[in-house]
């Protein structure tokens, strides 16, 4: 696991049923592209997050396949439909096999 990986997500606390809400996610990760060289001139091996998914109550919102061209500390902004109260699950999949998850509940008003 890359050190210091910390997911941060921004989800509104509440929404009305059927509303479309904007979600913002950021995860601290170096996203080593595999193109850079260290000071001895040898290639630093690739180490990135290669997939990000967001689900709401088990149903998929977005599934992103990521390549090394995604910047350090990957940021995503997208919109989700909220049919009922429940919980958003955000999952990031690292090249080294580890996954990072975060969940955020949302209420219906």
């Amino acid at each position, binding site marked *: 696991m890359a050190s210091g990986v910390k997911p941060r997500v921004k989800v509104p606390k509440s929404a009305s049923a059927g509303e*479309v*809400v*904007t979600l913002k996610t950021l995860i601290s990760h170096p996203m080593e*592209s595999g*193109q*850079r*060289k260290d000071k001895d001139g040898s290639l630093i091996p690739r180490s990135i997050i290669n997939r990000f998914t967001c*689900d*709401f109550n088990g*149903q*998929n*919102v*977005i*599934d*992103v*396949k*990521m*390549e*090394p*061209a*995604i*910047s*350090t500390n*990957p*940021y*995503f*902004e*997208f*919109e*989700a*439909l*909220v*049919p009922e109260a429940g919980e958003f699950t955000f999952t990031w999949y690292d090249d080294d096999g580890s996954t990072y998850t975060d969940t955020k509940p949302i209420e219906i008003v």
Partner: protein
Amino acid sequence: MSLTRRDTFGLALGAMALTVLPFRANASVDDLIAEFTGGADLADSGVDLTAPEIAENGNTVPISVDAPGASEILVLAAGNPTPAVATFAFGPLAGSRMASTRIRLAGTQEVIAVAKLEDGTFARAAKTVKVTIGGCGG
């Protein structure tokens, strides 16, 4: 130093290689698009790609794609060492077919978005981004 016949030849060959190289990069972009679309035709409208005209830092270039009715959007950077950037697949609870992120660009180049629409057709948009400092650690 005076140029011999052989030197001149070498230079000409080098120049030819330089002009041929960009085409090779584009070929792999075409391959990726063909793989995504299965060789289908690309419409010129139906997908919006928002990217800055000039990016000072190629390490984080904010981009945004928006394609109403799309099920998947592929983003490519034609001038990067590996042109693939990301593929956004929208699920049943996607509120809109829009996503924003930040990408790396190695230099001034074209960013391409290809959207797969729900009716089975494909749309393409491209935008040239001028990059002052490249984002590949060069």
